[in-house]
């Protein structure tokens, strides 16, 4: 616990103006630091210097009109953990074509995040500005070509059809509705 507090104190002392909030995560009270998205580079460089070279997970959630990015970092040598968090607002107007969220990429610091950043760019509509050469020998395309919308966002509306193919069932529609057109089909078991 002492080392966790010491780490948080060091971060607050060094980056006082860039730290939005300091708290703990989960029942294990892992130190958690909220920062502004534009400060990712300086924090990442500092944390890697402190031994946090391993990024276990990058989680993104849509929370009240913003995307919250959570990096779960750990130090292979000391076993310490820290959670780094930042928020990016989702643009309000879709019609203007600004539906994508522009975010800082962490590939330069933790290259293992490539697959997750690719997933989130499709599923959440995030444009990561990375100066690193993206791994172009792995095409991770989860959504079919021509898919409209970002499925993991909370305001996502499921399509009822895709290229003239009817969707299985629109959300809110019951299974019984699928059989409405079969009322004149022959009965298999005879008359009831």
């Amino acid at each position, binding site marked *: 616990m002492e080392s966790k507090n010491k780490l948080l104190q060091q971060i607050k002392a060094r980056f006082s103006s860039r730290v939005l909030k300091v708290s703990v995560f989960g029942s294990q009270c892992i130190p958690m630091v909220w920062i502004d998205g534009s400060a990712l580079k300086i924090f990442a460089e500092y944390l890697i210097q402190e031994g946090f070279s*391993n990024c276990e997970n990058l989680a993104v959630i849509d929370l009240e009109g913003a995307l919250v990015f959570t990096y779960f970092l750990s130090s292979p040598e000391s076993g310490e953990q820290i959670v780094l968090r930042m928020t990016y607002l989702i643009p309000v107007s879709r019609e203007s074509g600004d539906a994508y969220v522009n975010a800082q990429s962490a590939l330069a610091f933790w290259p293992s995040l490539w697959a997750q950043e690719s997933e989130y760019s499709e599923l959440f509509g995030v444009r990561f500005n990375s100066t690193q050469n993206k791994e172009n020998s792995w095409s991770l395309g989860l959504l079919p070509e021509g898919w409209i919308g970002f499925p993991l966002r909370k305001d996502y509306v499921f399509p009822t059809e895709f290229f003239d193919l009817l969707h299985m069932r629109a959300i809110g529609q019951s299974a019984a509705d699928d059989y409405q057109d079969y009322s004149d089909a022959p009965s298999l078991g005879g008359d009831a």
Partner: protein
Amino acid sequence: MTIFKTERLCETSYETDLISMTMGPYHASLPGPMILRLKLDGEMIESAEIETGFLHKGLEKSFEIQNWSSAVILADHVDPEGSFFAELALCSAVEELGELELPARAVSIRTILSEVFRLANHLLYFAKVAKAARSETAFHYVMRDREKLLDLIELLTGARSSIGFLRFGGVTADITEGFIERVLDSCDLLRVRLKEYNDLFTYNQAFVFRASSVGVLSRELVKKAGITGPAARASGLDYDVRKKNPYLMYSELDFGVPLGGGEVGTQGDIHDRFLVRLREIEQSLLILKQLVEKVPSGEFSLFQITPDFEVPIGEAYARVESSRGRLGVYVVSSGSVKPHRVQFSVPSQGLFAVVPQLLKGCYLEDLGLILASLDLSVTELDR
């Protein structure tokens, strides 16, 4: 002699025009629906590109649409082979969120099932590698013995793979009479079989020749790609979630974590990845023996889960050691009957990232064995 470095490829290049070859989305050598585009210089792979995403089923979105009471069943679909591990990770995260203290018997049952699944998956891995090496005899022997473990799983849970057995706060059913004895019998059988496997296959000259110093995964590449699990341990990275962040009963158990040492070739080659899993089978047998000797009495679950089950507001992150590596789950609850977010971090993400580099400079004939040795899962990658 197998060439696996690009410098040597240049020295002995056949200087032919490059051939483009596309494999997939369905191919016997591939681990699942994916496309592999190769550029071949004669028989040597000059470059490789992969394309995945064919098995994406919107699983993480499905969690948000269904209730918490259905979440465990959905978690089965992350990886049907190792469905238990995804269930366990999800239940651990939700139980941490809800500050639930599990009954000791439930913890013991979960730990036993965790090791039985690990054994079953490692045997399946053995079978896949044997199949890729064209050793049909070893394949059939191992699949026959794996059936004993699947029978054990079916005896306890009612199903062989997608079990839907865990519940928040415990497990669905208690251990039945005779289960412990059957676990011990299976452990004794596998101990004998491991020796037979070694005699038949592990140190068979044909397999050693094909597997030693082929598909070498360096420690630097493992760290860069974030690979965990047996593939990382074969390259010398000493990381096992059961030791570093113990969960269930692992802090009380005495077991080792085998590492690769380049016994017959180079550290991190196919043979090392294979040997590490064999040794993990030995360790799992050791763990099971310790577990079944002291199954505590008591309840197997805290409460019944109803369709209107709610999880308190908050978030949690849990990780487990699946048979492939670290499986992490991040859950967020808004206090309602439906999850706000359930996100999985799977070990196959790191493994797929190294496939193009690993294949570069190898012979085409080694492709199937290299892919089988990595233990890739397209299902968990795409979700």
